[in-house]
């Protein structure tokens, strides 16, 4: 069991997060960009659930800052939202990771909706309101691909 071994998994955690970050800012045609799942958030949720020591809130904060810089949003907006859902994932990781995969998807859906709500609220408060219903679509596609994330990342580290 090397799930809890931070040094080995930390490299894995940060490299997968970097790949996810690049996919999240990849320029796509608009009809694809609308349904693009928030891959970085999913990966950070996964690692915060599986190895809260290697993942955790620092990773959430750093990932959020990177999203803010790359997407040109207000510095701290994604950082706040992402550290919030990461905190929830770390807090509840003993509860959620024992659940079957479809129940996990429901947790993920709630987490992604909370994430988007925080972003939406900050958008509104800072005077850039963005109320189009399409902004909620990625939360659902994200919950749908959660089993894939678990399947792929589950193979990268040993678990029984």
């Amino acid at each position, binding site marked *: 069991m090397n799930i809890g071994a931070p040094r080995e998994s930390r490299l894995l955690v940060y490299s997968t997060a970097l790949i996810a*970050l690049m996919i999240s800012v990849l320029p796509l045609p608009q009809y694809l960009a609308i349904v693009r799942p928030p891959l970085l958030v999913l990966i950070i949720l996964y690692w915060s659930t599986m190895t809260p020591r290697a993942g955790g809130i620092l990773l959430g904060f750093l990932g959020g800052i990177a999203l803010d810089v*790359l997407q040109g949003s207000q*510095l701290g907006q994604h*950082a706040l939202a992402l550290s919030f859902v990461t905190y929830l994932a770390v807090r509840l*990781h003993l509860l959620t990771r024992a659940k079957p995969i479809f129940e996990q998807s429901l947790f993920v859906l709630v987490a992604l909706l909370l994430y988007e709500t925080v972003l939406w609220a900050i958008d509104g408060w800072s005077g850039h309101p963005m109320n189009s219903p399409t902004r909620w679509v990625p939360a659902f596609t994200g919950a749908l691909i959660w089993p894939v994330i678990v399947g792929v990342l*589950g193979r990268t580290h040993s678990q029984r």
Partner: protein
Amino acid sequence: MAFIGGNVNRHSSGRDSSPGFRFLLFAILSIVCMYYDQRDSWISNVRYYLQAAAYPIQGAVSSPQTLFSWASEMFETRASLRTENEQLKKRERELSLASMRYEALERENARLRALEEAMPPLVSKTLIAEVVSVELNPSRQRLLINKGARDGAFRSQAVVDARGLLGQLVRVGPWSSEIILITDREHGVPVELVRNGLRSIANGAGDSGELLLPYLPVNSDVKAGDVLVTSGLGGVFPAGYPVAVVTGIKRDPVLLVAQVRARPLATLTRDREVVLVSFDPKHPAAPGRREQTDSLPPLVTGSQSAAPKPAPKREAAD
């Protein structure tokens, strides 16, 4: 595959600080960042370096696209190159004819203004930049380009392409900058109609093919096909650059303003190269300087220095 079992590291969360404390710390840090970012202060320096750090990622992400366009250029056929060459020659001939006429007009204009010598050129410096990545969605219409402060780009510099006004720089990093397009919802250009000089503001609609003019009265003299150029007000863009063509007007008698739509002249979605322009402030068409227009003194409250000063002393000083 799907079962994630076992409470492996039960004690993992409480190593040196609890998750609640960490979250509080990062939440406060984020909020502080947002507060200062909104007010545009020292955090822009932090952002400058972060943008420099992010540039390799942006470059890597856009590399498949760059590779594709490079490859399609490499394998272009002889025939298509030939036709393109002919078209370019024709266009060059037309443009040189037009510029001959333009020089004559410029001289005439200078004479009419009774200037000793011909006017200085309006554009003092141009900088060609390549588009690194494109973001065109309803909430953000932005381009990322490969020129930054090291190349002489500066904030709120005007950006044009071969056909018209494109936008201005909002964020400048050392090697890259971000352009806010005129079609972004948060962007407005002061414009005037070429036909009758009617002034207004063209706001972005969040759609790369459309601008809205929401402040024209119902009875104003606008027609479809009218060309809008920059009016030179506002201190960012110089006067006389083409912006858009009016495409449709809806006059609802209930409303006080007409709903006017326009199509930008610049090819916002297809540009690979854009031009950053700097202007000679001595030229009459150059944008007015902000410092001169905003002549109100800063408002100071609650301090001795803000107390009214005796009037006679001031007059004596003048």
